[in-house]
Protein backbone atom coordinates (compact mmCIF):
# COMPACT_ATOMS: atom_id res chain seq x y z
CA UNK A 1 0.00 0.00 0.00
CA UNK A 2 1.62 3.23 -1.16
CA UNK A 3 1.03 6.37 0.80
CA UNK A 4 0.76 9.94 -0.31
CA UNK A 5 3.93 11.85 0.50
CA UNK A 6 3.03 15.30 -0.71
CA UNK A 7 -0.48 16.57 -1.06
CA UNK A 8 -1.53 19.87 -2.58
CA UNK A 9 -5.17 20.82 -2.15
CA UNK A 10 -6.73 23.59 -4.21
CA UNK A 11 -3.57 25.62 -4.09
CA UNK A 12 -3.66 29.07 -5.61
CA UNK A 13 -0.83 31.52 -5.61
CA UNK A 14 -1.00 35.03 -6.89
CA UNK A 15 1.67 37.68 -6.94
CA UNK A 16 0.99 41.35 -6.80
CA UNK A 17 2.53 43.05 -9.79
CA UNK A 18 2.92 46.58 -10.96
CA UNK A 19 2.49 49.86 -9.17
CA UNK A 20 -1.08 49.20 -8.09
CA UNK A 21 -0.37 45.67 -6.93
CA UNK A 22 -2.81 43.93 -9.21
CA UNK A 23 -3.17 40.23 -8.53
CA UNK A 24 -1.71 37.89 -11.07
CA UNK A 25 -2.21 34.17 -10.67
CA UNK A 26 0.90 32.06 -11.02
CA UNK A 27 -0.77 28.86 -9.90
CA UNK A 28 -4.51 28.28 -9.98
CA UNK A 29 -6.51 25.84 -7.93
CA UNK A 30 -3.90 23.13 -8.14
CA UNK A 31 -4.57 19.77 -6.53
CA UNK A 32 -1.88 17.15 -6.79
CA UNK A 33 -0.86 14.11 -4.83
CA UNK A 34 2.65 12.78 -5.03
CA UNK A 35 2.95 9.16 -4.14
CA UNK A 36 5.57 7.60 -1.99
CA UNK A 37 8.42 5.91 -3.82
CA UNK A 38 7.52 7.27 -7.23
CA UNK A 39 9.23 9.57 -9.65
CA UNK A 40 6.91 12.30 -10.78
CA UNK A 41 7.89 14.59 -13.60
CA UNK A 42 6.49 18.08 -13.58
CA UNK A 43 6.36 19.54 -17.07
CA UNK A 44 5.27 22.82 -18.49
CA UNK A 45 6.45 25.73 -20.60
CA UNK A 46 8.38 28.70 -19.26
CA UNK A 47 6.38 30.69 -16.77
CA UNK A 48 3.85 27.92 -16.22
CA UNK A 49 4.25 28.09 -12.46
CA UNK A 50 6.44 25.04 -11.88
CA UNK A 51 9.01 26.80 -9.74
CA UNK A 52 6.27 28.63 -7.88
CA UNK A 53 4.61 25.33 -7.03
CA UNK A 54 7.88 23.82 -5.93
CA UNK A 55 8.70 26.82 -3.75
CA UNK A 56 5.36 26.44 -2.04
CA UNK A 57 6.05 22.77 -1.40
CA UNK A 58 9.41 23.45 0.20
CA UNK A 59 8.02 26.31 2.27
CA UNK A 60 9.77 29.25 0.65
CA UNK A 61 6.52 30.94 -0.27
CA UNK A 62 3.07 30.58 1.19
CA UNK A 63 0.03 29.66 -0.91
CA UNK A 64 -2.49 32.46 -1.23
CA UNK A 65 -5.18 29.84 -0.88
CA UNK A 66 -5.39 26.11 -0.29
CA UNK A 67 -3.05 23.90 1.66
CA UNK A 68 0.02 21.72 1.25
CA UNK A 69 0.85 18.76 3.42
CA UNK A 70 4.14 16.89 3.43
CA UNK A 71 4.29 13.71 5.39
CA UNK A 72 1.38 15.02 7.43
CA UNK A 73 2.92 18.38 8.27
CA UNK A 74 1.93 21.70 6.82
CA UNK A 75 4.54 22.93 4.35
CA UNK A 76 5.25 26.01 6.46
CA UNK A 77 6.24 23.80 9.41
CA UNK A 78 9.94 23.08 9.57
CA UNK A 79 9.18 19.44 10.44
CA UNK A 80 7.76 19.02 6.94
CA UNK A 81 11.35 19.26 5.75
CA UNK A 82 12.88 16.73 8.11
CA UNK A 83 13.23 14.22 5.30
CA UNK A 84 13.27 16.51 2.33
CA UNK A 85 16.02 17.48 -0.04
CA UNK A 86 15.54 20.38 -2.40
CA UNK A 87 17.55 21.43 -5.41
CA UNK A 88 16.57 24.96 -6.43
CA UNK A 89 16.61 26.20 -10.00
CA UNK A 90 19.84 28.17 -10.51
CA UNK A 91 21.25 27.48 -7.05
CA UNK A 92 23.84 29.79 -5.58
CA UNK A 93 26.08 29.93 -2.55
CA UNK A 94 27.58 32.63 -0.38
CA UNK A 95 30.83 34.15 -1.55
CA UNK A 96 34.19 33.37 -0.16
CA UNK A 97 33.54 29.88 1.16
CA UNK A 98 34.91 26.61 -0.17
CA UNK A 99 32.65 23.85 -1.39
CA UNK A 100 33.54 21.65 1.52
CA UNK A 101 32.86 24.41 4.06
CA UNK A 102 29.47 24.98 2.52
CA UNK A 103 28.40 21.38 2.52
CA UNK A 104 29.72 20.98 6.07
CA UNK A 105 27.52 23.81 7.18
CA UNK A 106 24.42 22.38 5.53
CA UNK A 107 25.11 19.01 7.06
CA UNK A 108 24.93 20.65 10.49
CA UNK A 109 21.45 21.96 9.82
CA UNK A 110 20.00 18.49 9.51
CA UNK A 111 18.44 16.77 12.45
CA UNK A 112 20.78 13.82 12.29
CA UNK A 113 24.51 13.61 12.56
CA UNK A 114 26.25 13.43 9.23
CA UNK A 115 29.80 12.14 9.27
CA UNK A 116 32.62 13.02 6.96
CA UNK A 117 32.24 9.88 4.87
CA UNK A 118 28.63 10.67 4.14
CA UNK A 119 29.58 14.17 3.03
CA UNK A 120 32.31 12.77 0.77
CA UNK A 121 29.89 10.22 -0.63
CA UNK A 122 27.38 12.91 -1.48
CA UNK A 123 30.08 14.99 -3.14
CA UNK A 124 31.32 12.01 -5.11
CA UNK A 125 27.85 10.99 -6.17
CA UNK A 126 27.20 14.50 -7.44
CA UNK A 127 30.58 14.50 -9.17
CA UNK A 128 32.00 17.56 -7.48
CA UNK A 129 34.36 15.93 -4.99
CA UNK A 130 37.42 17.01 -6.95
CA UNK A 131 36.53 20.69 -6.51
CA UNK A 132 35.70 20.62 -2.82
CA UNK A 133 38.56 22.90 -1.86
CA UNK A 134 37.74 25.58 -4.38
CA UNK A 135 35.66 28.59 -3.41
CA UNK A 136 32.12 27.95 -4.52
CA UNK A 137 31.66 31.36 -6.08
CA UNK A 138 34.38 30.41 -8.54
CA UNK A 139 32.44 27.35 -9.69
CA UNK A 140 30.92 27.12 -13.14
CA UNK A 141 27.15 26.84 -13.45
CA UNK A 142 27.23 23.08 -13.77
CA UNK A 143 29.60 22.74 -10.83
CA UNK A 144 27.34 24.87 -8.68
CA UNK A 145 24.42 22.72 -9.73
CA UNK A 146 26.36 19.64 -8.67
CA UNK A 147 27.27 21.08 -5.29
CA UNK A 148 23.64 21.97 -4.70
CA UNK A 149 22.68 18.44 -5.66
CA UNK A 150 25.19 17.07 -3.15
CA UNK A 151 23.68 19.31 -0.48
CA UNK A 152 20.18 18.19 -1.34
CA UNK A 153 20.92 14.48 -1.08
CA UNK A 154 22.82 14.81 2.20
CA UNK A 155 21.37 12.79 5.01
CA UNK A 156 19.60 10.43 2.63
CA UNK A 157 16.20 12.20 2.56
CA UNK A 158 13.05 10.30 1.63
CA UNK A 159 11.65 13.06 -0.55
CA UNK A 160 13.66 14.80 -3.25
CA UNK A 161 12.45 17.86 -5.02
CA UNK A 162 14.48 19.02 -7.97
CA UNK A 163 13.69 22.17 -9.87
CA UNK A 164 15.08 21.80 -13.37
CA UNK A 165 17.92 19.56 -12.31
CA UNK A 166 19.23 19.07 -15.83
CA UNK A 167 19.54 22.68 -16.84
CA UNK A 168 23.09 23.86 -17.10
CA UNK A 169 24.59 20.40 -17.26
CA UNK A 170 26.72 19.15 -20.11
CA UNK A 171 25.76 15.91 -21.91
CA UNK A 172 27.90 13.88 -19.55
CA UNK A 173 26.38 15.68 -16.62
CA UNK A 174 22.88 15.02 -17.84
CA UNK A 175 23.61 11.35 -18.20
CA UNK A 176 25.18 11.24 -14.75
CA UNK A 177 22.28 13.06 -13.23
CA UNK A 178 19.79 10.71 -14.77
CA UNK A 179 21.80 7.83 -13.36
CA UNK A 180 21.61 9.43 -9.94
CA UNK A 181 17.86 9.66 -10.25
CA UNK A 182 17.73 5.99 -11.25
CA UNK A 183 19.81 5.10 -8.22
CA UNK A 184 17.53 7.07 -5.94
CA UNK A 185 14.53 5.52 -7.61
CA UNK A 186 15.88 2.05 -6.88
CA UNK A 187 16.12 3.07 -3.25
CA UNK A 188 12.42 3.89 -3.27
CA UNK A 189 12.76 7.61 -2.79
CA UNK A 190 9.91 9.91 -3.63
CA UNK A 191 11.13 12.21 -6.37
CA UNK A 192 9.41 15.21 -7.83
CA UNK A 193 11.29 17.09 -10.50
CA UNK A 194 10.42 19.81 -12.94
CA UNK A 195 11.69 20.10 -16.45
CA UNK A 196 10.76 21.40 -19.83
CA UNK A 197 12.74 18.77 -21.62
CA UNK A 198 10.08 16.37 -22.77
CA UNK A 199 12.57 13.68 -23.64
CA UNK A 200 13.31 13.27 -19.95
CA UNK A 201 9.80 12.15 -19.30
CA UNK A 202 9.62 8.57 -20.37
CA UNK A 203 12.91 7.20 -19.17
CA UNK A 204 12.78 8.76 -15.74
CA UNK A 205 9.20 9.11 -14.64
CA UNK A 206 6.55 6.86 -13.22
CA UNK A 207 4.05 9.60 -13.42
CA UNK A 208 3.70 12.89 -15.25
CA UNK A 209 2.02 16.13 -14.29
CA UNK A 210 1.66 18.88 -16.86
CA UNK A 211 1.16 22.45 -15.82
CA UNK A 212 0.29 25.18 -18.27
CA UNK A 213 -0.56 28.73 -17.27
CA UNK A 214 -0.75 27.75 -13.64
CA UNK A 215 -3.33 25.06 -14.28
CA UNK A 216 -2.78 21.35 -14.06
CA UNK A 217 -3.93 19.89 -17.34
CA UNK A 218 -2.69 16.34 -16.98
CA UNK A 219 -1.64 14.13 -14.11
CA UNK A 220 -1.27 10.47 -14.92
CA UNK A 221 0.98 7.45 -14.88
CA UNK A 222 3.41 7.33 -17.76
CA UNK A 223 1.86 4.16 -19.11
CA UNK A 224 -1.57 5.75 -19.35
CA UNK A 225 -0.27 8.89 -20.93
CA UNK A 226 1.66 6.84 -23.45
CA UNK A 227 -1.48 5.04 -24.46
CA UNK A 228 -3.26 8.33 -24.89
CA UNK A 229 -0.34 9.63 -26.88
CA UNK A 230 -0.35 6.68 -29.26
CA UNK A 231 -4.05 7.11 -29.88
CA UNK A 232 -3.46 10.77 -30.48
CA UNK A 233 -0.63 10.16 -32.89
CA UNK A 234 -2.69 7.77 -34.97
CA UNK A 235 -5.48 10.25 -35.34
CA UNK A 236 -3.10 12.98 -36.16
CA UNK A 237 -1.68 12.31 -39.58
CA UNK A 238 0.21 15.56 -39.79
CA UNK A 239 3.78 14.64 -38.97
CA UNK A 240 5.47 17.83 -39.97
CA UNK A 241 6.24 18.57 -36.36
CA UNK A 242 9.56 19.98 -35.29
CA UNK A 243 12.35 17.49 -35.61
CA UNK A 244 12.94 18.09 -31.91
CA UNK A 245 10.22 15.68 -30.98
CA UNK A 246 10.28 12.15 -32.19
CA UNK A 247 8.22 9.92 -29.94
CA UNK A 248 4.43 10.03 -29.79
CA UNK A 249 4.63 10.94 -26.11
CA UNK A 250 6.75 13.99 -26.79
CA UNK A 251 4.50 15.12 -29.60
CA UNK A 252 1.45 14.62 -27.45
CA UNK A 253 2.88 16.67 -24.57
CA UNK A 254 4.08 19.33 -26.96
CA UNK A 255 0.62 19.69 -28.48
CA UNK A 256 -0.99 19.71 -25.05
CA UNK A 257 1.15 22.62 -23.98
CA UNK A 258 0.66 24.44 -27.23
CA UNK A 259 -3.10 24.14 -27.10
CA UNK A 260 -3.45 25.30 -23.52
CA UNK A 261 -1.18 28.25 -23.84
CA UNK A 262 -2.74 31.61 -23.27
CA UNK A 263 -3.30 33.44 -26.51
Amino acid at each position, binding site marked *: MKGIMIELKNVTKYFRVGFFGTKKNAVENLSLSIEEGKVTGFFGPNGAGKSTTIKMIVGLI*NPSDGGIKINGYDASDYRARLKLGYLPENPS*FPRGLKGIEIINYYSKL*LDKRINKDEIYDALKLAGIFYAKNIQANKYSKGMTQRLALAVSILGDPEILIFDEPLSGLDPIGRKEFKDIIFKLKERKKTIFFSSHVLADSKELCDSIAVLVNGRLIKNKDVADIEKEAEGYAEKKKDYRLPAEYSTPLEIYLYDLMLKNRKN
Partner: protein
Amino acid sequence: MKKILYGTAYSFKEIKNSKIFYSFLIFALILISGSYFVSQTSFINQGRIMVDFSIFAISIFNIFIGIFIGASAVYDDIEKKSIFLTITRPLKRTEYLIGRFLGLAAAIIFSTVIMMLIFYAVLLIMHKFIVPVGYSAGNVKDKFTFYSLPQPLIIQALFIITESIFIASAALLFSLITSKALASIFAILVFFIGNVSGRMNDLIMPVKKIINGKIVIVHQANHILAAIVHFIYTVLPNFSIFNISSEAAYKVNISAGAIFYRIIYGLSYTVLLFVISSLIFAGKDIS
Protein backbone atom coordinates in the same frame (compact mmCIF):
# COMPACT_ATOMS: atom_id res chain seq x y z
CA MET B 1 20.05 25.68 19.55
CA LYS B 2 22.98 23.85 18.02
CA LYS B 3 21.77 24.89 14.59
CA ILE B 4 21.76 28.53 15.66
CA LEU B 5 25.38 28.24 16.77
CA TYR B 6 26.43 26.70 13.48
CA GLY B 7 24.49 29.40 11.70
CA THR B 8 26.28 32.05 13.72
CA ALA B 9 29.69 30.60 12.99
CA TYR B 10 28.91 30.30 9.30
CA SER B 11 27.51 33.79 9.12
CA PHE B 12 30.53 35.19 10.93
CA LYS B 13 32.88 33.39 8.58
CA GLU B 14 31.02 34.66 5.56
CA ILE B 15 31.00 38.27 6.78
CA LYS B 16 34.64 38.09 7.79
CA ASN B 17 35.52 36.98 4.26
CA SER B 18 33.44 39.68 2.62
CA LYS B 19 35.18 42.52 0.84
CA ILE B 20 33.13 45.23 2.48
CA PHE B 21 34.03 44.00 5.96
CA TYR B 22 37.75 43.89 5.58
CA SER B 23 37.92 47.08 3.57
CA PHE B 24 36.23 48.88 6.47
CA LEU B 25 38.51 47.13 8.91
CA ILE B 26 41.68 47.96 7.02
CA PHE B 27 40.61 51.53 6.46
CA ALA B 28 39.95 52.01 10.16
CA LEU B 29 43.30 50.50 11.02
CA ILE B 30 45.04 52.91 8.66
CA LEU B 31 43.23 55.83 10.29
CA ILE B 32 44.11 54.66 13.77
CA SER B 33 47.76 54.33 12.90
CA GLY B 34 47.51 57.66 11.13
CA SER B 35 46.18 59.30 14.25
CA TYR B 36 49.79 59.59 15.29
CA PHE B 37 50.51 61.94 12.41
CA VAL B 38 47.37 63.93 13.05
CA SER B 39 48.42 64.40 16.66
CA GLN B 40 51.79 65.70 15.49
CA THR B 41 50.11 68.77 14.05
CA SER B 42 49.57 69.96 17.59
CA PHE B 43 52.04 70.66 20.39
CA ILE B 44 49.67 70.25 23.23
CA ASN B 45 47.40 67.42 24.15
CA GLN B 46 48.66 65.05 21.50
CA GLY B 47 47.24 62.11 23.39
CA ARG B 48 43.79 63.62 23.46
CA ILE B 49 43.83 64.30 19.76
CA MET B 50 44.85 60.73 19.08
CA VAL B 51 42.07 59.45 21.27
CA ASP B 52 39.44 61.68 19.73
CA PHE B 53 40.52 60.81 16.25
CA SER B 54 40.83 57.09 16.77
CA ILE B 55 37.62 56.68 18.72
CA PHE B 56 35.83 58.55 15.98
CA ALA B 57 37.34 56.21 13.38
CA ILE B 58 36.54 53.10 15.37
CA SER B 59 32.95 54.08 16.04
CA ILE B 60 32.14 55.34 12.56
CA PHE B 61 33.56 52.25 10.85
CA ASN B 62 31.79 49.85 13.14
CA ILE B 63 28.55 51.71 12.61
CA PHE B 64 29.15 51.46 8.86
CA ILE B 65 29.74 47.76 9.23
CA GLY B 66 26.53 47.49 11.23
CA ILE B 67 24.51 49.46 8.73
CA PHE B 68 25.85 48.10 5.46
CA ILE B 69 26.24 44.49 6.46
CA GLY B 70 23.03 44.62 8.48
CA ALA B 71 21.19 45.83 5.41
CA SER B 72 22.77 43.27 3.11
CA ALA B 73 23.27 40.08 5.11
CA VAL B 74 19.78 38.70 4.72
CA TYR B 75 18.87 40.84 1.73
CA ASP B 76 21.72 39.48 -0.38
CA ASP B 77 21.00 35.97 0.77
CA ILE B 78 17.52 36.34 -0.66
CA GLU B 79 18.65 38.28 -3.72
CA LYS B 80 21.35 35.77 -4.64
CA LYS B 81 19.05 32.91 -3.69
CA SER B 82 21.67 31.37 -1.46
CA ILE B 83 19.00 31.37 1.26
CA PHE B 84 16.99 28.77 -0.65
CA LEU B 85 19.10 25.86 0.46
CA THR B 86 19.31 27.09 4.03
CA ILE B 87 15.74 27.64 5.02
CA THR B 88 14.49 24.58 3.19
CA ARG B 89 16.40 22.48 5.67
CA PRO B 90 14.55 21.45 8.82
CA LEU B 91 15.27 24.84 10.29
CA LYS B 92 12.91 27.47 11.61
CA ARG B 93 13.16 30.79 9.88
CA THR B 94 13.76 32.48 13.20
CA GLU B 95 16.69 30.18 13.85
CA TYR B 96 18.20 31.21 10.56
CA LEU B 97 17.66 34.88 11.33
CA ILE B 98 19.13 34.62 14.81
CA GLY B 99 22.19 32.86 13.42
CA ARG B 100 22.65 35.49 10.76
CA PHE B 101 22.29 38.32 13.24
CA LEU B 102 24.54 36.83 15.88
CA GLY B 103 27.15 36.25 13.18
CA LEU B 104 26.97 39.92 12.34
CA ALA B 105 27.19 40.84 16.01
CA ALA B 106 30.23 38.62 16.33
CA ALA B 107 31.80 40.35 13.33
CA ILE B 108 31.20 43.74 14.94
CA ILE B 109 32.73 42.59 18.21
CA PHE B 110 35.63 41.09 16.33
CA SER B 111 36.35 44.26 14.36
CA THR B 112 36.00 46.51 17.42
CA VAL B 113 38.40 44.33 19.39
CA ILE B 114 40.95 44.31 16.59
CA MET B 115 40.71 48.07 16.16
CA MET B 116 41.02 48.64 19.89
CA LEU B 117 44.04 46.36 20.06
CA ILE B 118 45.78 48.27 17.32
CA PHE B 119 44.83 51.52 18.97
CA TYR B 120 46.20 50.21 22.24
CA ALA B 121 49.42 49.21 20.53
CA VAL B 122 49.78 52.68 19.01
CA LEU B 123 49.24 54.28 22.42
CA LEU B 124 51.73 51.90 23.99
CA ILE B 125 54.36 52.77 21.43
CA MET B 126 53.68 56.48 21.83
CA HIS B 127 53.50 55.98 25.55
CA LYS B 128 50.52 58.29 25.73
CA PHE B 129 47.24 58.04 27.50
CA ILE B 130 47.80 54.68 29.06
CA VAL B 131 47.53 54.04 32.75
CA PRO B 132 49.89 51.82 34.73
CA VAL B 133 48.28 49.04 36.68
CA GLY B 134 49.66 46.51 39.13
CA TYR B 135 53.31 45.87 39.90
CA SER B 136 54.79 42.47 40.17
CA ALA B 137 56.26 41.63 43.54
CA GLY B 138 60.01 41.50 43.99
CA ASN B 139 62.83 43.93 44.04
CA VAL B 140 62.92 47.11 42.10
CA LYS B 141 64.94 45.67 39.25
CA ASP B 142 62.27 43.17 38.28
CA LYS B 143 59.63 45.82 38.47
CA PHE B 144 57.33 45.35 35.59
CA THR B 145 54.60 47.79 34.81
CA PHE B 146 51.59 46.78 32.89
CA TYR B 147 49.86 49.57 31.05
CA SER B 148 46.18 49.45 30.39
CA LEU B 149 43.76 51.66 28.56
CA PRO B 150 41.90 54.01 30.88
CA GLN B 151 38.47 52.79 31.97
CA PRO B 152 36.37 55.20 29.84
CA LEU B 153 38.16 54.02 26.68
CA ILE B 154 37.33 50.41 27.40
CA ILE B 155 33.75 51.39 28.15
CA GLN B 156 33.67 53.41 24.94
CA ALA B 157 34.58 50.27 23.02
CA LEU B 158 31.75 48.43 24.75
CA PHE B 159 29.36 51.22 23.82
CA ILE B 160 30.54 51.19 20.21
CA ILE B 161 29.75 47.49 20.06
CA THR B 162 26.31 48.01 21.62
CA GLU B 163 25.51 50.89 19.34
CA SER B 164 26.71 49.20 16.15
CA ILE B 165 24.73 46.04 16.87
CA PHE B 166 21.72 48.19 17.63
CA ILE B 167 21.91 50.09 14.35
CA ALA B 168 22.53 46.77 12.56
CA SER B 169 19.21 45.46 13.87
CA ALA B 170 17.51 48.56 12.49
CA ALA B 171 19.20 48.09 9.11
CA LEU B 172 18.19 44.43 9.07
CA LEU B 173 14.58 45.30 9.79
CA PHE B 174 14.52 47.93 7.04
CA SER B 175 16.13 45.54 4.57
CA LEU B 176 13.23 43.13 5.03
CA ILE B 177 10.70 45.71 3.93
CA THR B 178 12.55 47.81 1.39
CA SER B 179 15.56 47.57 -0.85
CA LYS B 180 19.08 47.33 0.43
CA ALA B 181 19.95 50.89 -0.59
CA LEU B 182 16.89 52.39 1.05
CA ALA B 183 17.44 50.31 4.15
CA SER B 184 20.97 51.69 4.48
CA ILE B 185 19.74 55.22 3.98
CA PHE B 186 16.98 54.82 6.56
CA ALA B 187 19.40 53.34 9.04
CA ILE B 188 21.82 56.22 8.50
CA LEU B 189 18.96 58.69 9.01
CA VAL B 190 17.82 56.97 12.18
CA PHE B 191 21.36 57.02 13.44
CA PHE B 192 21.92 60.65 12.57
CA ILE B 193 18.63 61.91 13.98
CA GLY B 194 19.06 59.67 17.01
CA ASN B 195 22.36 61.39 17.62
CA VAL B 196 21.12 64.94 17.47
CA SER B 197 17.57 64.53 18.77
CA GLY B 198 18.68 64.99 22.37
CA ARG B 199 20.34 68.27 21.62
CA MET B 200 17.44 69.40 19.43
CA ASN B 201 15.05 68.65 22.24
CA ASP B 202 17.12 70.79 24.58
CA LEU B 203 17.10 73.60 22.05
CA ILE B 204 13.36 73.79 21.75
CA MET B 205 12.80 73.78 25.47
CA PRO B 206 11.37 77.11 26.57
CA VAL B 207 14.04 79.39 27.97
CA LYS B 208 13.11 80.45 31.48
CA LYS B 209 14.55 83.10 33.69
CA ILE B 210 13.86 84.06 37.21
CA ILE B 211 13.00 87.72 37.25
CA ASN B 212 11.99 89.31 40.54
CA GLY B 213 11.44 85.91 42.09
CA LYS B 214 9.10 84.72 39.34
CA ILE B 215 9.77 82.22 36.58
CA VAL B 216 9.31 83.98 33.30
CA ILE B 217 9.50 82.35 29.89
CA VAL B 218 11.71 84.58 27.82
CA HIS B 219 11.78 82.50 24.69
CA GLN B 220 9.42 79.85 23.39
CA ALA B 221 9.95 77.96 20.14
CA ASN B 222 7.12 77.43 17.70
CA HIS B 223 4.72 74.94 19.29
CA ILE B 224 4.31 72.72 16.27
CA LEU B 225 8.04 72.52 15.75
CA ALA B 226 8.51 71.79 19.42
CA ALA B 227 5.93 69.00 19.26
CA ILE B 228 7.59 67.44 16.21
CA VAL B 229 11.03 67.55 17.74
CA HIS B 230 9.73 66.18 20.99
CA PHE B 231 7.95 63.39 19.17
CA ILE B 232 11.11 62.43 17.26
CA TYR B 233 13.08 62.61 20.47
CA THR B 234 10.68 60.27 22.21
CA VAL B 235 10.19 57.77 19.40
CA LEU B 236 13.65 57.46 17.94
CA PRO B 237 16.37 55.94 20.02
CA ASN B 238 18.90 58.26 21.54
CA PHE B 239 22.29 57.35 20.17
CA SER B 240 24.20 60.17 21.78
CA ILE B 241 24.36 58.32 25.09
CA PHE B 242 26.85 55.93 23.52
CA ASN B 243 29.26 58.69 22.70
CA ILE B 244 31.53 59.31 25.67
CA SER B 245 34.50 60.67 23.80
CA SER B 246 34.79 63.72 26.05
CA GLU B 247 34.87 61.55 29.16
CA ALA B 248 37.39 59.34 27.42
CA ALA B 249 39.54 62.27 26.42
CA TYR B 250 39.71 63.50 30.02
CA LYS B 251 39.91 60.01 31.51
CA VAL B 252 36.76 60.53 33.54
CA ASN B 253 35.53 57.20 34.79
CA ILE B 254 32.02 56.18 33.85
CA SER B 255 29.85 54.97 36.69
CA ALA B 256 28.71 51.38 36.73
CA GLY B 257 25.10 52.53 36.79
CA ALA B 258 25.46 54.53 33.59
CA ILE B 259 27.26 51.68 31.85
CA PHE B 260 24.60 49.21 32.86
CA TYR B 261 21.70 51.48 31.98
CA ARG B 262 23.03 52.38 28.54
CA ILE B 263 23.88 48.85 27.56
CA ILE B 264 20.48 47.62 28.67
CA TYR B 265 18.91 50.48 26.75
CA GLY B 266 20.74 49.49 23.55
CA LEU B 267 20.13 45.80 24.02
CA SER B 268 16.41 46.10 24.65
CA TYR B 269 15.97 48.22 21.56
CA THR B 270 17.98 45.67 19.58
CA VAL B 271 15.86 42.80 20.85
CA LEU B 272 12.67 44.68 20.09
CA LEU B 273 13.74 45.45 16.53
CA PHE B 274 14.92 41.90 16.06
CA VAL B 275 11.60 40.47 17.21
CA ILE B 276 9.78 42.68 14.71
CA SER B 277 12.19 41.56 11.97
CA SER B 278 11.62 37.98 12.90
CA LEU B 279 7.84 38.33 12.72
CA ILE B 280 8.08 39.94 9.30
CA PHE B 281 10.54 37.37 8.08
CA ALA B 282 8.43 34.41 9.24
CA GLY B 283 5.61 35.26 6.86
CA LYS B 284 7.68 36.58 4.02
CA ASP B 285 7.55 35.03 0.55
CA ILE B 286 11.08 34.23 -0.48
CA SER B 287 11.47 34.00 -4.19
